[in-house]
């Protein structure tokens, strides 16, 4: 993870106890395939939730169910305590920013923003003033007369946000609207979403496959995979205490290990990987690990210390040796790929923490690696054998 700092955000005080959105046992089946399987969560008023997952994980389907474009096969969705499955989209008070923005090309920016007010038959005399106020909110004051195609990509994003918010919806949905932007603009717009959301206090659900975006903008993160909710936690907990090995591997740059459980001592798990006995922390639902059973483990690249000197790693609970196989310079960090003798494991990816010393390893150097027991997450073994190559982060 390049920048972890923004993830440290204090959750806002819950003023309203009633959930703004409550999803209860929702499933969606297309042609016998579960796009969403038994999803349940509550979202408090004013919170910013991100549903994070790879493509095909069901996150967009879940969003479209909440928006009302799809009807769940089973389960129920409540918005402000009201069951909405029978309510068509145009009667739900939901503002949505679409993946391709879906601005109306035959209208000006102001006409786009005025559209939901017109459709809701608001007093025509108040519309222009309100439209201008929301255009100013998204920093497009004075540009209302422009046609959509006369605006830049970032400005179009802002029009889409203003249009989704101008009628003060109960809920704002973001369907990966930033996916098509280049990185710089995307990061700018992420903060912009966050600023506007805080300013208005509107409950927001964002869908993305960008882990950085999820950590930066959200109060809560739901990680989805294969239609199932894997974890629902704060960004910090999602990153620090991934509940499943999927979450551990999806966020950050994570190395996968596998072995056999040798001891269970509360949270501390003994794991035998090849000839190496290591200690890790149980993650996810407890009690699923058994002595003698296979388990998989995950360690993040930034949690591994690297040193040519074994004694420098003396405080760490797991230490092993290896050989540098590749050095990847990424500007703000150096990534080493280290070959070890661990079975079913490719080279371990390690971030160099000791940038101050400017020590550089070269391919072929013999090094020692070490980590703390609390940083090695141990999970029940994956159904499929652990991949031979560690997953790359985004």
């Amino acid at each position: 993870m390049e920048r972890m700092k923004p993830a440290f955000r204090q959750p806002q005080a819950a003023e309203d106890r009633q959930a703004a959105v409550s999803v209860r046992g929702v499933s969606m089946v297309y042609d016998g395939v579960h796009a969403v399987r038994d999803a349940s969560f509550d979202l408090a008023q004013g919170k910013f939730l991100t549903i994070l997952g790879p493509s095909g994980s069901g996150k967009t389907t879940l969003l479209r169910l909440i928006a009302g474009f799809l009807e769940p096969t089973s389960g129920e969705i409540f918005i402000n305590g009201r069951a909405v499955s029978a309510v068509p989209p145009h009667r739900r008070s939901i503002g949505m920013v679409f993946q391709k923005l879906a601005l109306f090309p035959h209208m000006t920016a102001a006409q786009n923003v005025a559209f939901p007010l017109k459709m809701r038959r608001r007093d025509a005399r108040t519309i222009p003033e309100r439209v201008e106020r929301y255009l100013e909110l998204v920093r497009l004051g004075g540009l209302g007369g422009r046609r959509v195609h006369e605006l830049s990509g970032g400005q179009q994003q802002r029009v889409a946000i203003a249009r989704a918010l101008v009628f003060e919806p109960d809920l704002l949905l973001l369907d990966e609207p930033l996916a098509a932007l280049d990185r710089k603009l995307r990061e700018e717009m992420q903060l912009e979403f966050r600023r506007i959301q805080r300013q208005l206090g509107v409950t927001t659900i964002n869908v993305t496959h960008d882990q950085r975006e999820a950590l930066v903008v959200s109060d809560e993160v739901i990680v989805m995979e294969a239609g199932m909710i894997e974890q629902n936690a704060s960004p910090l907990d999602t990153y620090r205490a991934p509940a499943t090995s999927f979450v551990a591997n999806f966020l950050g740059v994570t190395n996968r290990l596998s072995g056999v459980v040798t001891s269970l001592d509360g949270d501390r798990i003994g794991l035998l990987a090849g000839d190496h006995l290591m200690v890790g922390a149980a993650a996810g639902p407890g009690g699923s690990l058994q002595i003698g059973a296979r388990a998989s483990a995950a360690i993040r690249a930034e949690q591994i210390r690297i040193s040519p000197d074994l004694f420098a790693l003396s405080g760490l609970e797991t230490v092993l040796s290896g050989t540098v196989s590749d050095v990847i310079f990424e500007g703000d960090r150096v990534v080493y790929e280290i070959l070890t003798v661990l079975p079913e494991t490719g080279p371990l990816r390690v971030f160099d923490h000791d940038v101050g010393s400017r020590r550089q390893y070269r391919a072929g150097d013999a090094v020692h690696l070490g980590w703390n027991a609390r940083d090695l997450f141990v999970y029940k073994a994956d159904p499929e054998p652990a991949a031979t190559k560690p997953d790359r982060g985004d």
Partner: protein
Amino acid sequence: MDALEAAAAVVWPARFAAAVPYLMLAPAVLLVGLLVIGLAYIGDTSLRTLDTSTFLLSDDYTLANYRRALSESLFRTVAARSLQASLIVTAVTLLLAFPYAYLMVRTPSAALRKLLLIALFLPFFIGQVVRAYGWLIILGNQGMVNDALSLVGVAPLRLLYNYPSVLFGLIQYMLPFAVLMLAPALTAIPEELEAAAHSLGANWLRAFWHVVLPLARPGLVGAGLVVLTLTLTDFAMPAILGGGSQDFIANAIYDQFFRTSDQGLGATLALLLVAAGSLLVGLVLYLFGAGTLAMGRRR
């Protein structure tokens, strides 16, 4: 390869490259040019009157044919009938074609889309004249419709040789043209725009009215122009389904050329038809803008 390129360079040096686009345009220009020559020839003929004793055209120019064409009530009736028909047929055809095209483009069922496409193309394989004769069989005094009506005790109705039957035949003939021109225009409207309109509070009707219809305008204008001009200049439907009682301008021109042999008056009527058609097209483009045909460089 080098030798080939060298040979090509001799035959067609690189500095000629700029001429290529114009050269490719040449056949089309030639074709249109021939048409203009024909038009000039017709223009010349239209200025000569027929000598009824010798059946030869006069040598000197006169506007007598135009005076006749514009003053005689027969021609005025025929022109008004054609014009009225083209407007009615255009309106009704667009009204029927739009839902058909919309369903064809938007249906999630591939089978239905194919069925609609086949149903659309099948009539194309049957020419206009054959189709008109088909209607004679169905709508005639001893036709299928009257046969069916007699079974339930209804006396035979006169379904043919009147204005509505001509309009009916024309609409049936024009429908595929209109659908084919509307479908691409509707395909170009992202479905997400309709979803967005719904999420912003528009019910189906209002989303259609405020989003789909305005964005479908280029297709509607294009389809409308095609149907309008084809109807205005149609010959077979009024001739066969109208049975001589419902002549359009094209039928009147035919009569002048091949029945009374007054080529001068026929040419005059032909030119007036061209003028009326151009005026109508010009008016539509003026009202809705050439940009609606996706011409020009907007966006």
